[in-house]
């Protein structure tokens, strides 16, 4: 804990200016450099924020999985604090995907919502991890919240490929409306911008994670101090 705090502060101090500059660069590239997509027009530019958001949301859930496993094996609450921070960010970025997706879908395909596999998976995952956060808030003690949430975090992550696969199977022979996320057939300028956005969002996610993680640690310190004051004899 004592070692973590300065480390997180350093990460924040380094990442903050880098992310700030890169984010402006991303916006410049998105609005001034890349050409308009032929069929979908200007609205396709949402793609440069939507796909990176989806990527970091999944990254967040992966961090939840790893941190939960580490918590259950080491029983150090630090890992649980990290899992909690990552879950909140995962839910946040999932929400960005779910909000920006329909804004793109409406002009591009004439419908606000489509039960496309990736979009549906994102929705289901959002629900799984919202339940994870509700569970944390409903637990009776800090240790219990950590333990139960870790189990749900692990199970939820194991569920990700199953959910994706099942939704894909469910929509069976429907045309795929998203182009494949890897960016095949993208124009060089588009591909470069896309890669830049992916990189920026990954750093942005790391920055937010460091901030939220440190906040979580501070909250724990505060709770500890309050506990001590409530029971001065102990």
């Amino acid at each position, binding site marked *: 804990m004592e070692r973590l705090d300065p480390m997180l502060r350093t990460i924040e101090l380094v990442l903050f200016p880098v992310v700030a500059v890169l984010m402006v660069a991303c916006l410049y590239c998105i609005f001034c450099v890349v050409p308009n997509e032929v069929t979908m027009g200007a609205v396709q530019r949402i793609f440069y924020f939507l796909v990176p958001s989806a990527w970091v949301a999944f990254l967040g859930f992966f961090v939840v999985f790893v941190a939960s496993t580490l918590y259950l094996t080491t029983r150090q609450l630090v890992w649980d604090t990290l899992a909690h921070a990552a879950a909140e960010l995962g839910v946040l970025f999932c929400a960005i995907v779910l909000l920006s997706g329909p804004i793109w879908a409406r002009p591009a395909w004439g419908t606000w919502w489509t039960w496309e596999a990736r979009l549906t998976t994102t929705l289901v995952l959002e629900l799984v991890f919202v339940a994870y956060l509700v569970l944390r808030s409903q637990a009776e003690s800090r240790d219990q919240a950590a*333990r139960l949430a870790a189990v749900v975090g692990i*199970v939820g992550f194991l569920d990700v490929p199953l959910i994706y696969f099942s939704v894909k199977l469910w929509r069976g022979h429907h045309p795929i409306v998203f182009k494949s996320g890897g960016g095949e057939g993208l124009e060089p300028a588009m591909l470069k911008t896309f890669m830049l956005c992916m990189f920026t969002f990954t750093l942005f996610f790391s920055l937010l994670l460091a901030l939220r993680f440190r906040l979580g640690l501070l909250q724990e310190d505060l709770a500890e101090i309050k506990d001590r004051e409530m029971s001065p004899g102990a």
Partner: protein
Amino acid sequence: MPRWLAAGREVAPLNATPPALVICVKDLQQELKTRESFTAAFFFALLVQLVFSFAFDFQSLGLGFQDVGAGVLWITLTFSSILSLQNSFVIEREKNCLAALALCPCDPSSVFLGKFLANLIFVLAVQAFVLPISALFFGYDLAAVALPLSLVVVVNAAGFSALGTLFAAISVRTRRSELLLPLLLFPAATPVVIWGVKATRLCLAGRGLEAYEYLVGLSACFGAIFAVAGVLLFDYVLEE
């Protein structure tokens, strides 16, 4: 009623019978005495069907059981299972039986397996009554597809109960367990519901097993994954 089920005292000691089976039998005996869980789940399932019929008015729309049966079946199964899953751990909360279960001189995974087995039997028992009744409502010849349909229901209900047992044990530990279980279970059980509905639809349409055996296989995998996850993780859930 078989003798081993009727007399609790005669259940073999822990070291002779697998502990999971002992726990499962204990749950079944308790249920046979009170019939709480079954009655509630059964009537709830009937009510769901009733609401379903009012909401969609199948007869005037000309829909048959083969069109809507899969949906009816899976909505009733998931909704009514929530009740029995919930109850299987709520009964343990009284008089702090959960602590006693945790203190059981056996592996925590046995508690999970026992509960899972009992839950699966509950879910299937409810379906065994509800399915013929719904077929009756819709005038469908269930006997023709009884065998393949049972296979689909058993495999998918097993997957749903495996995950449900783990989540029920988690949610019962929290302040608002009845609120949390559906919130946790429904999204996470999406795959087994999707595969179950799809396989059931093909089955009710009279297609051969080869048309949906891959779906049954997938659901079996889902059940296996979460049964193993439950076995490995239940220790942490039971802990005080």
